[in-house]
Structures are given as C-alpha cells and as structure tokens.
C-alpha cells in the first residue's frame, strides 16, 4: 500500500500505518486524517504530539488504557478521559491517532 | 498442594532445577521429565538440596518412561517416585498451578 503526497509515494503497511516514521510530516498527517474523515484542529495536534512523545519514551504505540493514563499524566484529568480522545479520534482513538501520528499499529489494542 | 514444578532440562547443563529448588515451597511437588530425569542421579547438581527438600515435605516425581528410555532405572535416588503418564495428568490436576522451568 502507498499514500500519495504531492506526488511523493509513502509506504504503508496492510492496515494503512506508515512503515517508516521518518516519512511523517504535517502534510502526511492531514492526508491520513482525511482518510479517517477527521479534520485536524489544534486539539488533535496536541494529542498527536503527545503520542509521538510516548513512542519516543517507550518505543511502543499505546493501547487505549495507557493512552488515557499518559494523557491524564501530561495534559491533566480533563483531557485524560477516553470520551475526550474518542471525540477527537473516532471510533478507536488509540488506533486512529497512532495512524495519523505516523506510529505503528498498537499491538495490544482490542 | 500448591504448585507443581516441572523440569525438562538436564541439571548438568541447565540451572532450571537449581532455580526451582531455591523457591520451592514445602507443599509443592516437583516432576522431572524428558532430560530433566537426569536430576534423579545422586551426582546431579542440586541433588543434595533436592533430598533436603524431600525431608521437608516436598514430593518429587520422575516420569518412568523417560527414566527407562535413558537407561536410568537402577539409578533413581531415594525418595523420588517414578510415575507414569496417567499419574502425571493426575498431578497437574491436584495442584493449583503448574510452573514449567525451561
């Protein structure tokens, strides 16, 4: 699978996740988000940046529970709720947000 | 009985038997099978500790098919009980958990 960005082909795995995080940029994120019918707002970008921080820290895409806990730890209890993340990245926040952030599919996510 | 510990590696080349003996509780059982049956020899690393645990109430079994296959039938150390496959199955049912050391 490939994603075409300004004539530049980017390799995706079978589930539509970037194979190489180095291919990721804001244009790629917007394109990936559009495929999920999501228009990225500052609230989305805050979470995307947070996820990438998680990945750098633990070399892992978080499953939902860890995603919520980490968000709570870094951004406070208002945002550290599954309903908040679900509104931004429906229908499966950990999977969808990881995809838009250019990270691998969370392996331990239901 | 609580935990059944199974050992399937030779104590002459692996530390699994010795590790098991360190943390084995008095109501536990130990089953030697496959190459683990070399642990029935009195010269095996851990053989003395094994006998001490038996004195303290630990039950030690060894799979008789594996013992015979390796020609060890006459060499089984005291207080180690040779058992067949049916008894093996019963042991796994009689214990709360099985810990396979490998």
């Amino acid at each position, binding site marked *: 699978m490939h994603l075409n960005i300004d004539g530049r082909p980017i390799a995706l795995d079978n589930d539509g996740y970037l194979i190489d995080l180095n291919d990721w940029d804001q244009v790629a994120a917007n394109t990936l988000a559009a495929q999920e019918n999501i228009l990225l707002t500052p609230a989305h970008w805050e979470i995307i940046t947070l996820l990438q921080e998680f990945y750098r820290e633990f*070399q892992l895409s978080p499953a939902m*529970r*860890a995603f919520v806990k980490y968000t709570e730890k870094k951004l406070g209890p208002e945002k550290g709720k599954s309903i908040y993340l679900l509104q931004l990245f429906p229908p499966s926040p950990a999977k969808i947000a990881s995809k838009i952030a250019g990270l691998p599919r969370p*392996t331990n996510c239901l | 009985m609580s*935990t059944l510990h199974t050992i399937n590696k030779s104590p002459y080349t692996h530390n699994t038997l010795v590790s098991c003996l*360190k*943390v084995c509780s008095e109501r536990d059982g130990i089953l030697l099978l496959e190459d683990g049956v070399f642990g029935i020899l009195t010269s095996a690393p851990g053989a003395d500790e094994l006998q001490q645990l038996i004195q303290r109430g630990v039950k030690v079994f060894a799979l008789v098919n594996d013992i015979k296959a390796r020609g060890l039938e006459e060499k089984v150390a005291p207080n180690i009980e040779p058992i067949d496959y049916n008894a093996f199955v019963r042991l796994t049912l009689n214990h709360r958990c099985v*810990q396979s050391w490998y």
Partner: protein
Amino acid sequence: MNKKILLISRQAPYGKSTAREAIDIALAASVYDQNIGILFMDDGVFQLLKSQQSQHIDQKNIALILPALSLYGIENIYVHRESLDIRMIKTDELILDDLQLLDNNAIGNLLSQQDHLLSF
C-alpha cells in the same frame, strides 16, 4: 473474572525473543483487566539494567518499555534478590525504582498465591 497471573521471566534480553514476548503478553493481558505481576529471575534480571543501548544491535530497548508497565496498570514487578546478588548487580543499576525485591521464601509464597503461572 479477575485472576491473579504471574509471568516469570528468566531469560536475558535480545539473544532470544523470549524476554520481549513476556512483556508483550503482559501488555496484552492488561487490556482484559487481569491482576498481573511479573517476576524477574535468573538471567531475566539483566533486562532491568538501565545502561542498555540496544540500538547498537537494531533492537527495541527492553529497559525503555518496562517503565510503561505502570501505565498499563501493571504495578507488581518482583525481582529475585539472589539472582541480582549472584550477578553482582546493584539496585541503583536498575531501570525501575519501585521494584519489589524478594528472597527465596517470599517467591515461594508468591507462586502459591497465583491462579496462573506463565513461564518465559
């Protein structure tokens, strides 16, 4: 139903995939809200060294993943004290500081309290 599950991790990191598999199983099982603990014993204690730089062999760093366990609700991390002593590893060399160091008897008790034991 909430079961007590203990993963026993006894292999060094990287040489085989066993160590990483134990962590992955723990992360996966945590999704089902089980009561999960991990015991590091024998060469498994080498996974805890914070000085690991596994990028030199193109592998993911186990020491980086371990601090994520608490985010997955896995709070009970046990270490066999004698395994550390035999390898002359001091506790300040370990990646986690909320580890529970257990002696031989305490590990015997720990095992007998579990509903399931998983060996790695």
